[in-house]
């Protein structure tokens, strides 16, 4: 467990009360943190359990880390994905995502005697890189399930307000179409789209 990071997130999301709980009883605290955080974020985690959600939070963080703009985890992509999977996707896709997160954790325990979220960043990245390449111990089916999750991380991040407006360029009302302009004048890709 990267306690400092979890602490930071918890503090950010829930204020000091939740942080206090977290310090006293870690396992219970994770549950409380997510419940309160999700209440704050307007989500009610209903598909993923706390371990799966924490695994996903780490994947979000490693996929789109904080730079001069927030990370995917900081904009709550993991909560978003939990909500989006529950609401927008069919049970087969939900099941594939849940199974994959469990598998990641199981492989971590098998290799390192620790759950995925307790591993250090290097070990976590090593597992994810193998998963993305469908190399042992991961299958192509697992890789495909991961790509769905990754697509959701990206979708969740760049449709979030910080991702859309700080990391990329969001043009609500462009005003006039210009067919040719130097990229350097815009500065980044657009997040705004006609259809998402």
């Amino acid at each position, binding site marked *: 467990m990267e306690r400092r990071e979890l602490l930071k997130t918890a503090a950010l999301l829930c204020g000091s009360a939740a942080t206090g709980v977290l310090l006293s009883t870690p396992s219970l605290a994770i549950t409380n943190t997510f419940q309160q955080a999700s209440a704050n974020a307007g989500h009610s985690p209903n598909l993923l359990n706390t371990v799966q959600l924490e695994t996903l939070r780490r994947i979000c963080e*490693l996929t789109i880390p904080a730079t001069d703009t927030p990370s995917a985890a900081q904009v709550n992509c993991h909560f978003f994905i939990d909500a989006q999977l529950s609401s927008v996707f069919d049970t087969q896709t939900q099941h594939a995502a849940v199974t994959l997160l469990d598998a990641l954790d199981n492989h971590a325990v098998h290799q390192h005697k620790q759950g995925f979220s307790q591993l250090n960043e290097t070990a976590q990245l090593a597992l994810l890189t193998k998963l993305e390449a469908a190399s042992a111990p991961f299958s192509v089916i697992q890789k495909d399930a991961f790509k769905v999750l990754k697509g959701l991380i990206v979708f969740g991040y760049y*449709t979030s307000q910080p991702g859309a407006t700080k990391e990329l360029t969001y*043009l609500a009302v462009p005003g*006039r*179409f210009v067919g040719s*302009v130097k990229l350097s004048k815009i500065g*980044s*890709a657009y997040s705004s789209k006609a259809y998402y």
Partner: protein
Amino acid sequence: MKKQTYINESSEVYDAIVVGSGITGGWAAKELTEKGLKTLMVERGRVVEHQKDYITESKPPWEYPNRTKVPHNLVEEQYAIQRQCYAFHDGTKHFFGNDRDYPYATEEGTDFSWIRANQLGGKSLLWHRQSYRMSEFDFLANQRDGHGNDWPIRYKDLAPWYSYVEQFVGISGSKENLPQLPDSEMQPPFEMTAPERDFANKMKQVEPDKPVIISRCAHLTQPTKIQVELGRMQCMVRNECQKGCSFGAYFSTQSATLPAAARTGNLYIAPNSVVESLIFDEKTNRVKGVRVIDNDTLATREYFAKIVFLCASTLGTTQIMLNSTSKRYPNGIANSSGVLGRYLMDHNYNALVTASIEGYEDEYYIGRRPASLYVPNFHYEPGRYHKQFKRGYALAGTASRADWQSMGTGDGFGKDFKARLHNPGPWGIGLQAQGEMLPNPDNQVTLHNSKKDKWGMPQLNINCRWSDNENAMMESALEVSSSMMKKAGFTNIQQRILGQPPGLAIHEVGTARMGRDPKTSILNGYNQCHDVDNLFVTDGASFCSTGVGNPSLTFMAITARAVDYAVREVKAGRLG
């Protein structure tokens, strides 16, 4: 809209009733009211007020509970058909019909996706706004190759009416002087991007019969007095049109024809009024009005008028006509010919080719252009037909840079991954065919013999399929598009047949066709029923063939022309 515009119960005999309020109904109402006829527009759905009811306009994705996606259960239960439309999402779903409430049947072994927009404004709120004239070749096609019946009108009959509606609507595009695609009255075209411009220039050299032009669309790029007076403004290139546009920058009933009709003082609207059938008077052999079922309460009422314009969409109009039976017309009103419901057509959009464009790394664009590239039909007359199929197709497509949406599942993690998505990705291009469908009597809609909807209307039973002609055309479109891309130097050329059923081009036409012969057609050359002279059909049902162009502009021109004729007949004492 003033409150008194909306009516519910009325025993008044109006000068005219217009059934439907979409592109066609809006035009009929505008023309009739401007010519002094007291007109009742009958709309089956709810009122949608311009601006006020565009509830999702400008709403950014993060403000939607599912970032514009529609919950799975809701889609499965209520929008399984509508979701197939590219424009269906959480920000537009309130303008789509609910499949649970608007059921229809399809003949076993066939499939048809019927996209619905049952509210004031109809599909004018949802259309893709691409606007093309049909050409002299389109109006001659049936006669020349023997499929379908000869159109009773020619291009020259409609040309002045195209000009008339275009000046009001506002069409952007470029003058090209092409025989197969007559120029419209145009406002300045949208620009091409750098690789698009180079592609167009290259094709001029190597494929001179396949000019690549910018598409023509009903967006104001330089509003004229006519448009400004109605409160319309220049397009802001948001390309979020289907949420509604408070700028009135794209043509819709709400932005254009409805305010024009309302300011005459002659317009009345009966919303929430599902037309069950036409009231037919056996003695006079004329229609007297419409029987209506209330959309919400299911109560019945009647509205009366001297003439009736059916503009309820191709299939909506046909359903009403088939359900209007009498001793004289047991198989549907004005259907002595028996062709009512036959010759259903759509466009076939099934051939898609994509490719990568190398270079242009420093090139970008500003705005979400509501226009695309367009390659007009190059098989536009029998001497230019491909040996494997009749008629032809246009190509439409866009070159743009990849972004987080298309690159988001690429490999990698961390800062490098994030940096990669920070910049726009490589350029890519797609070209999709828009193919003509041959008129075929077997592509037919009938009333289902037992299934009804919640208003008690017999459901439409749709029996429609692509023919070998359309399938061969799509195969050819793949080859041609690929060849053009190859000649342009594009790489990674990928061909795909999409396998979509008819319906999804949302260009359904043909089921109450015009013609010179009352034995083989429903309408004469002025969209007037051969059998019932005060009944007009001016929506897509009246078409004899589809051509390759998007049909809405022709709905408008044909409607304005029909109204002009009808009012002249009324004033001459021959009608009403």
